[in-house]
């Protein structure tokens, strides 16, 4: 079967480089497009200073469009945050939350995006209330289905039911592939060992994850082995991560419009040993998915205490892997050498 999946990058992947200015936003768009991953996803509050409290300079918006035009980028998503805890001690009122989403719809449209990403903790009623405005602006609001939540969780089902009841096609899902964590990531294990987890306990947790043991039993097992502090914390990651099945996406295909290609590490042989992208691509092809998989590198936070993350190399490796899995004949490669 010929795949219609397209490749993109969330600039989240380069956060360690853009944080201290090692890479500019323009560099990130160029690198992504050179790798053939021309779908560009941004977190507005990361890529644009000022958003949302102060607004963004017109010159900065123009510079973004210049970069996109120069390298052939296609705007995919503006990931918005909606800080409903903006006021200490009281939640943001409902109408104000809806108005805030409308502002992000405008910002997404200004950036030339097709979608805006909603975080999974946002109530479905807020998104449903914002949907007519999204339709007007030609934007879809996608809720990010992210571990520990998954497509069979009642909170997600509640969203799905609210979306169906609304009758709006401006509401949908953005699954984060981290919910299909089929093996405990190497970089997580090594980080916990640097924090002092003894090797036997670390091995026990990795094996228990492989055996799909319920998190609470693993935590108890670690306690019985004498584990404390970081060992318990390592076991507790099993409360928030699990090997859910990619095929669970099939029920929701008509509302899945973008995919977060979450990864913690792709090795030098272009293999992700934790997240089963071969199975993920097979399921997406079966479901007729024609949207983007946007790289979302998140190994950075697991290794930055020991080494500077090489975000560009990690994104390159994942893009090579994805290009192979979707049957592209050319191997993605960087064309412009990175500045030393």
């Amino acid at each position, binding site marked *: 079967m010929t795949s219609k999946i397209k490749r993109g990058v969330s600039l989240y992947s380069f*956060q360690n480089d853009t944080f*201290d200015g090692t890479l500019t936003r323009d560099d990130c768009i160029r690198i992504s497009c050179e790798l053939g991953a021309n779908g560009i996803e941004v977190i507005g509050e990361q890529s644009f200073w000022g958003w949302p*409290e102060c607004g963004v300079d017109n010159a900065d918006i123009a510079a973004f469009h210049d970069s996109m035009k120069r390298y052939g980028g296609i705007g995919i998503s503006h990931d918005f945050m909606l800080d409903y805890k*903006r006021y200490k001690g009281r939640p943001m009122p409902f109408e104000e939350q809806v108005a805030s989403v409308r502002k992000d719809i405008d910002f997404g449209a200004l950036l030339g995006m097709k979608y805006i990403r909603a975080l999974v903790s946002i109530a479905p009623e807020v998104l449903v209330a914002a949907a007519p405005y999204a339709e007007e602006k030609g934007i879809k609001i996608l809720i990010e289905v992210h571990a520990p939540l998954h497509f069979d969780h009642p909170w997600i089902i509640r969203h799905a039911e609210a979306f169906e009841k609304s009758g709006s096609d401006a509401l949908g899902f953005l699954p984060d592939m981290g919910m299909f964590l089929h093996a405990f990531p190497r970089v997580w294990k090594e980080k916990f060992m640097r924090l002092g987890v003894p090797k036997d306990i670390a091995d026990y947790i990795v094996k228990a994850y492989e055996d799909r043991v319920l998190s609470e039993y693993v935590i108890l097992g670690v306690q019985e082995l004498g584990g404390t502090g970081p060992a318990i914390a390592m076991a507790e990651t099993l409360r928030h991560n699990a090997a859910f099945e990619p095929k669970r996406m099939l029920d929701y295909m008509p509302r899945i419009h973008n995919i977060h290609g979450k990864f913690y590490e792709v090795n030098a042989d272009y293999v992700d040993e934790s997240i089963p992208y071969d199975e993920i691509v097979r399921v997406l092809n079966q479901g007729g998915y024609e949207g983007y998989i946007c790289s979302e590198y998140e190994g950075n936070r697991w290794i930055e205490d020991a080494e500077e993350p090489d975000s560009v190399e990690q994104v390159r490796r994942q893009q090579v892997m994805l290009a192979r899995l979707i049957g592209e004949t050319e191997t993605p490669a960087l064309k412009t050498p990175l500045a030393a």
Partner: protein
Amino acid sequence: MMDHKMIVAGSLVAVEGGFALEARLPYYRGLGLSMVENIAVTVDGESYPREAVRFTVRGTTYTLDEMETCYDNRWNFGEKALITVLGANLAPGPHKVTVSVRKRISYLPFVPTMTASKELALAA
């Protein structure tokens, strides 16, 4: 995340009535000032009261209490803010500086505090 890049190297200076250093918000995005709940500074094991801390971005200075109700300014992603501690007198030379930032994040079921330490030298 980005904890190790939070305190800006070489940024410790003496100011009238105290000292100041630069810091970045250890987070993958910026944050509205009302959601920065606390900034605590410790130097060589000595901590300073919350009232002694001032926060400055793009030329505007706030007390930590003023930040709690500031809804029209933010600490941008990667932006260097000036953290000033008043009523302190540091000797020239090397100091171990620790900064903790408590931030209220809407989607998190807890209020995280990020802490980082760095050796900074105060010029004579």
